[in-house]
């Protein structure tokens, strides 16, 4: 399990391609958050529609939670 001293970046699988992602920082308590999910979502704009992952068929959203305060956050994977 990752702790506060866990490495700053990790490799994640995205459409079969490995990419480095940085830790998301909690906006409530400034701690590193834990990425616990990737969710395929529909694009919400024409700009996102142009960035649909051709392998997965959608946009990948990362979902993170803060081990300190429980706050949740999300962002697009790329």
């Amino acid at each position: 399990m990752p702790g506060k001293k866990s490495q700053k970046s990790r490799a994640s699988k995205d459409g079969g391609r490995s990419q480095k992602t940085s830790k998301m920082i909690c906006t409530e308590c400034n701690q590193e958050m834990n990425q616990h999910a990737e969710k395929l979502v529909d694009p919400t704009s024409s700009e996102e529609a142009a960035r649909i992952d051709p392998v997965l068929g959608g946009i990948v959203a990362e979902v993170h939670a803060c081990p300190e305060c429980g706050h949740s956050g999300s962002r697009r994977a790329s």
Partner: protein
Amino acid sequence: MAEACPLFIPVILGTTRRGRMSIHAASLVTSELARRAGLETELIDIAKLPLPTDDAGGAIKDKGFAEKMNRADALVIVSPEYNHGYSGLLKHVLDSCLEEYIHKAVGIVGVSAGPFGGTRGIQNLLPVMRELGLVTIFWDVNFSSVQKVFDGSGGLLDSSFLPRIDKFLKELIWMAKTLRHGRENIALE
């Protein structure tokens, strides 16, 4: 997260129909949740959410509702059965969020005037829950012939529902605690 931080388990009343009996079921489940130590709850009435109907999805996200879904560790959805399904406005509200639900527990309470207690509506909700990233529990509460379960002012006439609600909530709380631990501590490999 500090163990002392209470779980937040709101109850969503999934109908706007006038004269709805589901409000009594939702109020009862909310009060049973509120009696338990270590958690907070509130009743969210979708009839009071100011969501427009000329658009849908994240584009109409209500800030207050989204913040509650973000904070929630689990949800209870109280859903009457409409023609073997659930209400369209419940789906409209649920669709306004997505990432906020992921890896959180959900339990469903079905309500009907007939004998099946909303089971067909619940079955139709299950695939929606899955796509929203919610984790369903295996206990439901089914208020069949709801007009016989509550009096006109919401008083419970059939106390046999209390142990059923107890089983339902115990499972929901276990799942909420487990998923909170996972969200906060177990990284996606």
